[in-house]
């Protein structure tokens, strides 16, 4: 792994290391904002608990607006995800696709980390970028995002009567066949959201945990792009 980012010496014990470009940080927060928006609007569309429609339909339009926000945010999310995926593969940036894929070495690394986190025994390997456990969670997240976008666009294209060409014609029927009709697609769209949310819980917790326990400013790195590394562990890289 080439040391393609500058390292700044902070003091005797710590070194400031660049781990992300500002662009990747920005994409992360775009994805976070769109996921939150999509969950809130999606929950309302799925089960409109709060009723705003006290007036006549012509001056209410709550559901229509919520769905509009949901669809627009979905395309923002899709764009951000595609850009991020491109970034992982792109030769001009740091290719982090190998940290994400569940290769044998990643799986064994992830199992070691999991053992450490669950029992507190064993050695905690330090990684400059994604650790294998994080990589596999990201892989799971990508799968879930793929599920959410495909089922979501299948549901969307059902009413996309204005699109009389291309994917809108075959995509819903394909998804319907795979998942057993549009009700199945809808169900998976909901379940996918909950799976994604539980991964978010684990992700945020792990980041907070690692930042507190190892004092490496891990959680700040998604804003600043920099991470603190202790000199004694950095010698490994």
């Amino acid at each position, binding site marked *: 792994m080439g040391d393609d980012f500058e390292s700044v010496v902070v003091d005797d014990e710590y070194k400031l290391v660049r781990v992300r470009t500002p662009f990747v940080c920005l994409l992360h927060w775009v994805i976070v904002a769109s996921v939150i928006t999509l969950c809130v609007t999606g929950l309302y569309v799925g089960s409109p608990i709060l009723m705003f429609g006290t*007036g006549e*339909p012509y001056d*209410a339009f709550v559901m229509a607006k919520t769905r509009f926000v949901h669809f627009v945010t979905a395309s923002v999310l899709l764009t951000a995800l595609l850009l991020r995926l491109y970034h992982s593969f792109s030769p001009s940036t740091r290719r982090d696709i190998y940290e994400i894929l569940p290769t044998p070495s990643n799986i064994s690394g992830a199992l070691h980390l999991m053992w450490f986190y669950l029992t*507190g025994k064993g050695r905690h390997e330090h990684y400059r970028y994604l650790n294998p456990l994080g990589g596999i969670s990201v892989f799971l997240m990508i799968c879930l995002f793929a599920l959410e976008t495909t089922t979501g666009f299948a549901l969307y294209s*059902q009413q996309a009567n204005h699109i009389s060409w291309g994917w809108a014609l075959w995509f819903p029927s394909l998804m319907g066949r795979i998942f057993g009709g549009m009700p199945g697609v*809808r169900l998976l769209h909901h379940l996918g959201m909950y799976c994604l*949310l539980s991964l978010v*819980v*684990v992700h945020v*917790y792990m980041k907070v945990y690692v930042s507190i326990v190892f004092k490496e400013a891990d959680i700040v790195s998604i804003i600043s792009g920099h991470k603190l590394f202790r000199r004694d562990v950095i010698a490994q890289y």
Partner: protein
Amino acid sequence: MSEEKIRLLNQLDRRSFLTLCAQISAALGMSSAMVPKIAEAIEKAARRPSVVWLHFQECTGDSEAFIRSTSPSTAELVLDILSIDYHETIMAAAGDQAEENLKKAITENRGKYIAICEGALPTATPPGPAGKKGDYLTIGGRTGLDIAKEVCGGAFAVICVGNCSSYGGVQAQRPNPTGAMGVGEALGISTVNIPGCPHNPVNSIATVVNYLLLGSLPALDKHGRPKFAYEKRIHDQCTRRAHFDAGQFVQEWGSEEAKKGYCLYKMGCKGPQTYHNCNIVRYNDHTGWPIGAGHGCVGCSEPAFWDRMSPFYGRLEGVEVPFGGVEATADKIGMTLVGAAGVGAAVHAAYTMGKKRSDDDKGGEDK
């Protein structure tokens, strides 16, 4: 004017005949200029199309819907527009005579008659030594599968009316003890499906008229349904759609919202997943349809709607949770997942903090 034509015109009430033609033209998406041509096609048809109507596993609801059509009236339908040569419910003949009629119809018009099927075909074999495949339905000593094979094999077209003959209907619902299937699936043939529970006679008649007029069957969608009737989603044509967009929903049966005619989405209406023209042509002589009457759509024109559209009064499919077979909704499963992740994180945090504290107390090495 031929004798036959004069006889026909005497029998027919011209006004209701033209009304029918106009309705068919509308159902097929043609302009009003086509009405005289449709009338001509029906009048000119050298021989009214011979129709053999078969009953399988069903409730005769589709025949009921068919004969309750008022324009055209039952008499016009049976005597003037179609030549219904065999129909177990409305034919006068019985016993051997009836079977003779069927034999005659399918041999004389081989390759030219239209087979209309109503009801699903059981394909399972009953238990016991005497059981043979398809025995759950036996008519005159023959299994439904046998009859269907013979009649549908020689037909110009097979039209399946109702959800049962199209996709299996209620008897094909899990666990499907009789192995019921739609006619097309059971015989491995392509059929024109006019699903619905019951189907709307406007659609079946329009399909036949399409054949009279153009000599071919209408364009079908992926489920074998004529596109003129099943291309549009109920949700997009719904009279209550404005209430959906406005976020105005019925939350309880018999409530003020229900009286105001708000959207039935929260009561489990399956309009957003269902493709049918029932909100446009409507039932019962074009007077009403389920959502108009205040009940949500149950998706009766979709394959396996008993399994996939239920619960009929809830939004998402009920999913069986493997532990203890409890019925839970996606929301419950999801909340459990997120909750479990949260609890796991909390327990882990508490454990780590406790361990750290005790390590610090012991003056253990820094982690």
